[in-house]
């Protein structure tokens, strides 16, 4: 299990997201969106950022290099 700090654009707080190393980035983003949906939601395409750079949603947490307690962001819109 890899604990991560997730931040959804439009939300007011960072949430702890528990991921597995073989979870896809898209799955991790989905977990964050589900946890934040009382306060915020993004309709339409999203981009996941790690260290300020877009991450391939099909890659895994391990492949993307997310270490325990890393910050990732889910933002509105497709990757530029």
């Amino acid at each position, binding site marked *: 299990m890899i604990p991560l700090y997730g931040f959804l654009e439009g939300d007011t707080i960072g949430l702890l997201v528990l991921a597995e190393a073989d979870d896809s980035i898209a799955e991790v983003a989905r977990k964050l969106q589900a946890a934040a949906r009382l306060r915020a939601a993004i309709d339409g395409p999203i981009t996941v950022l790690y260290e300020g750079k877009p991450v391939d949603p099909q890659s895994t947490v391990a492949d993307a290099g997310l270490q325990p307690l890393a910050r990732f*962001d889910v933002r509105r819109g497709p990757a530029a």
Partner: protein
Amino acid sequence: MLGRGTGVLKRDDWLDLARKLDWDLSYVSEKDAFPEVQSGRPWLPHAEWAAWDEPFRTSYPEYVAGQHAKEASVAAVREAVGRVEDYQRLPQGWLEGLKLHAATLPLAEFAAVVGNLRAARFGRDSAWRSAALLGALDEMRHAQIPLLLMHDLVRWDPQFDWTHKLFHTNNWVAIAARHLSDELLLASDAIEFAIATNFVFETGFTNVQFVGLSALAHGVGDKMFEKMVGSIQSDEARHSQIGAPVLATVVKHDRRYAQYLLDKWFWRSWLLFAVVTGFSMDYLTPLEHRTSSFKEFMHEWVLDQFLRSLDEFGLKRPWYWDTFLEGLDNYHHMVYASAYSYRASVWFNFVVPGPRERAWLREKYPASWPDFDPIWQRISDRWRESDPGNDFAVHGTAIVSFCDLCQLVLSNGTPRANAANVLDHGGRRYVFCSAPCRWIFEQEPERYAGHKGIVKRVLAGDAPANLIALVQRYFGLDYDTWGKDAFGGDYPWLARPAKSAKSEGRQA
């Protein structure tokens, strides 16, 4: 003392005989009697402090007479309007702000007794030590008065029991409050205490609490709260004056350190007041009783005076000033919305801002409110779909994250761009809610690095990961005391769709 043929000496002719009591030490060195670890830095010979003075110059008989009159006045108001029935007439939202304020105040004031007593022993001039001794006595009554007043209410509402209980729990607010109080009040040396507590916290910030919030108490008819904070403020106004002459000497000898202490403690104080006072002023006080927004109160009672003080001492605005100004528009809104959605984790109830409140907030916060309004629309919509009183249908379930410096939730920045950032230090990873919190950590990492916040306690297995278990087994709450929506989500403005007979039948 009598002068021959002239009667009683004038006060100013004898006062210093009772408060300027320093003498040349012969059996110990000055450095042994006033070690830097307790007295603070820069360490200077007493000659540099000998001119220390403050404007009140209170003698002990004057202090006793004045405090006696204040106690009698508080007791008279308590006798008149301090019964449970008097509180039951107050607006519900205001009572929730009272629970928040009452729990965070008294045991922090008790810790301030210790800070003042350290200054009463290790302050570098006897007049400073005399003033700090009276400050310690002040703080004792600031602890005892709210404990006494709120204790009467426990039989009516057990959430008021948290006035005494909060600091003895592992509730996340208690962890944040202790982290601040331990450093600010219990562990600070005399110089840091004077600058951090007397100058920044008491001179800079308590006016927004004791003057601004007191004015709102007058508006809602809470005469007891108004009297209590007015009485406390009259003490604060006196002992806060210890700070300026200490700061003046530190500026003269080590301007950089003085600037560091100001920058550090202004930020830490701001975060606390934004939560304790910001919630009450912009959300929990009923709209018809609000006179100014929290931001307006801050400008009137904190910023103008603080900036004037910086000019007087030739100091600069804190380096993060633009971040702070952005926070005035955002921070307490970020935390309130977050805390509302995790209200079972605290000991007081919350109010959803309705259409009229949201219009007021839009007017007061035109730059930031458009980012918060959709959040309250979603929360309102969720209540509309849920039955009144079903709090957990409108509640978060994930574990939230906390700053490794201030221990508050990661809610700095804006909804568009949360300001949290991660730092690797000494083989451990830390997360901070803001650049100033990270900066404070980096200045003295050995002071903070060992502390374990909630997330690290959960990951280490010291605290449960399940939210309900965390609330009950670790935060010390149960159904009777955990925070709920103050109206059970049953607001006059929240029209629920009528349920069809078919769906009613299914439910039955």
